[in-house]
């Protein structure tokens, strides 16, 4: 069953000679439970595609349909609600909230939605991501790798239908990267989550079910 799709997706910046085509007519379809890796060179449009799929940015033209929602038809507030219920984001630069400790950062999307936190699940996540003893630490006291793991835990904690990860292992060592990917895959399989992950690492990309290559704003394979 298709859970995520993009039709003729374009994202242009600037105009005239300075026109940049970040995405240039991307068509994409992702099935529920699929683990897709997006690879491509720097500036190829990977992150832009991910932002469009998650409703963080508005396309110049084309459409994105995610979890049965046509994103262009949602208002700003509806998009935010959609994101917290259906999408889990793992940002390259984490975007953790400096005022909240690890635990609070992780449970925030669930609590913003007024849902009860699945404490056991969160505890399990923390344990598996090696953060069990850092629950009360503030982000500015964590290393880059630890912050990345918190960001992953936050994305998984709400059990979203779709997980969008932008270089989730970029700041992690090989062993931790393997562990994190293990968690991602396990969660995907357990909750039938769809994962779209951007990576530069061909080895990590190989762990995905499908690899999409993007160059100059277009999907190559």
């Amino acid at each position, binding site marked *: 069953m298709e859970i995520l799709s993009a039709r003729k997706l374009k994202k242009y910046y600037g105009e005239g000679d300075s026109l940049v085509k970040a995405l240039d007519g991307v068509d994409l379809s992702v099935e529920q439970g699929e683990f897709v890796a997006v690879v491509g060179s720097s500036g190829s449009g990977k992150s832009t595609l991910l*932002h469009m799929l*998650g409703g*963080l*940015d*508005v396309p110049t033209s084309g459409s994105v349909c995610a979890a049965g929602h046509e994103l262009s038809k949602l208002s*700003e*507030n509806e998009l*935010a*609600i959609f*994101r*917290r*219920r259906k999408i889990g*984001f793992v*940002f390259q630069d984490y*975007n*953790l*909230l*400096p*005022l*909240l*400790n690890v*635990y*609070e950062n992780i*449970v*925030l*999307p669930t*609590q*913003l*939605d007024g849902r009860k936190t699945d404490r056991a699940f969160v505890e399990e996540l923390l344990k598996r991501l090696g953060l069990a003893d850092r*629950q*009360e*630490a*503030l982000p*500015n*006291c964590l290393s880059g790798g630890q912050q990345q793991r918190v960001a992953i835990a*936050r994305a998984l904690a*709400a059990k979203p239908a779709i997980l969008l990860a932008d270089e989730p292992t970029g700041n992690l060592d090989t062993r931790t990267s393997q562990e994190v990917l293990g968690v991602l895959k396990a969660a995907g399989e357990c909750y039938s989550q769809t994962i779209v992950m951007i990576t530069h690492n061909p080895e990590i990309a190989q762990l995905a079910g499908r690899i999409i290559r993007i160059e100059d704003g277009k999907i190559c394979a």
Partner: protein
Amino acid sequence: MMKIRNKKILRMLAGKAYRKNLRQNLMMIFSIAMTAFLITVVFSLGISYYKTVTERNLASEGMKYDVSLPEPTDEQIQKAREADGVKCAGLAVKCAVTDSDDGKDRIRFWWADEICWEKQCRPAFVMWEGTYPEKENEIMLSTQALSELGIEQPETGMGIPLIWSSLSEDSDLNNCETVFYLTGWFEEYGSHNSGYISKEFYERTGVKQTDTTNGVLYISLENPLYSSAYIKKLGNQIGLIGNQVIYSDALLFVKFVRLAAGILFLTVMTLVSGALFVYNIFYISVAREIRHYGQYKTIGMTVSQMKKYLLWQIFWNVLPGILGGLSLGCVVALWAVPYMLGALSGEAGMRQVVAFHPILLVLASVVTLLAVWGGCRQLLEKTARLTPVEAVRFNESVRPGKEKRRTKEIGMFQMARWNIFRSRKRFMVSAASLCMVIVVFLVVSVILQQNSAKAILNKQYQYDARVLNSKLRDDQEHAGITEELAEQISGLDGVKTVRKVYSQEVQYDYADTYEIMKDYMRAVYELPLMSESQLEENLKVWKNRLPGDETYPGQGQGRLVGIDEAEFDVLNKQGNGNLDKEAFFRGEGAIAFGFLSVSAESLVGKKLNFQVYGQPQESSVTVKWSGDGIETPVYFTNDVMPDIIVCEELFRELVTVPILELLDIDYEEAFDTTTDQAIAKVLENHDDLKLSTKTEDYDLLYGNELRLRVIGGSLCAVLVVLTFLNYGNMMAVSIQSRRRELAAMQSIGMTRSQQKIMMAAEGFHYALIAGGISLAAGLPLSYLISAAVNTYHTPYQFLILPNLLFFAVLFAFCSLIPVVLYQFLQRGRLIELLKE
């Protein structure tokens, strides 16, 4: 050697940074200007009040003096001139008046000695022309008197026929017709129909300077802010006799100290408020530019160069700020001060002097500079000494700390609380600024209420209307108010109660009473306006008074007063219910009221023997209670002896022909003009009765109240604007520094609506914390300040409604402003905000 032009470079760099931060700098200029402006107005108020106080007699008497002594003897005049602290003492005697058959105002003829004329009259005139009269038929008239006589273009030497009468009781010079020759004219500040005549004419009238109400010694002091202790000393040096008193304002110094304290309070509040605002803006500018400062440090800028670089920017704000504020202050002070003075002085007709002095501008500039320096100093020092690494690491939006206890539920209010405390320093500054304005509002609102016309009148008048038997003393116990009249007034619509007060002159026998009253008498003559030397003299007169001698004024005379139940209830309420009503109405004793502020406590339990005027037999009552702290119910008083109040029934037993001195009337509704008119109608044909109502004074006092409200309100408004701008500015910067964080929240599912709620909650918390602290500190402070400046002794009153409204506005403003700013500042594509 090559000249190093680093000063110029520093100024250039500072200039660039200044222009880049133009919005913040304009805000700082505005805050400095507002501080300078407020301080100018406050200082102008102070200096003007001082001038008004020192020249307060100009309008009321048309003379420049500080205190006066009625009916002085030559010996006293000499002693007064030689007394410590006396600048000069001039004698003026009112010796004749013109007749006024045609309904025109009478012209009073005064003779002034040389000192009085040269040093006290002439400096008090708006203008004068001509010379002081020397011959018997010469006169100098006020422009108002000339105008009354129909002379608009006076000329020296012109003849003016006038019919006049001497004010001497022994003189038979009545309705004399004389053609006076004009030697000059003058214009006074007040409206007086007066003229000055020669010494020759004065001697002809037969009036003596010691005649009651005619002669006055006007005394100018070296220190116009005299104390009551000084007046007491002056009285002793002059040697007061009989019932003479020095007319002075016993509370002048106290009032001045109170006002000075008020001005100091406003100055400190303004200074602190201005300093907080300056600090906040400077902090924001520094936080924004700190990385650049770090870069400058990296490439070799020294601490002193960094200070100069920052000082240039401060200087460019200070210069236009102070100049603008002072200019605005001058304009407003010249307009506002005259109105404010009338309101603060509470004295009707007081000449309102607009005082402005260059020193005032210097002082205001210095205080403003202090505020700026207070706001910048610490930050300037700290910034200049930051190392490059510290500058790069500077992140004001992240709270230091390693761990935070896990929270079960994270709500909007919870996050708002965390957010406001993320920069504790900024929170402290903004909250302190909000506290400041709330406290000022609380204090000003209490003082305004305290000085409201109704509060003053309710305190000063224990009745809504009073009918006074004004000729009671004219022909020795004149019966003007009848029981029927009291009944008639009582039956009028709108009248709730008519309280009857009877009174009768009594003579105490020296032999029976002196021992009992010894302590009381000593206390009386220890009053600042009395002199101890009078005591011995007066006791001698009292002692030698023969039985049956009813001449007035004498010594040992007092008043016996009879009151009904309604009047007693009013007195007892004032005395906090300490009087025993049943015992009083059983006739078991009397209440004794001392002269002025003298306590009658020493008379409690003593039996007083006296002789009622016109009755041969001696009577007596026992004093059971002292009336200390209670307003005496009678209008007239005799001598310095206490008023003795008994119940109506006992009064009728003691006095064969009881006479009503006055009726105190309470209305169903206070300030009811219809009832005023109804009573006035009843009294239409009673020339011997005088009606006074609360409403009469209301208009005059309401004018003062209105002016005080406008001025107090304006001062508050400026502080409110300053504070709210400070708050808005702080919030704008807080939101700007969190743009990325807010976008991150949005990206993980926080809606804009939720973020707006969070913003409103932040503002609400500010208002809540500042409001709480201010109420806790402001209420006691408002009580203390209002007690200190309570000229009219009105009760402390905290008005719920205006304060609720103010707090509602405060909460609404504090909650809404962050939402509006968020809406305005957190715009743009989410992904762009995340990349910031």
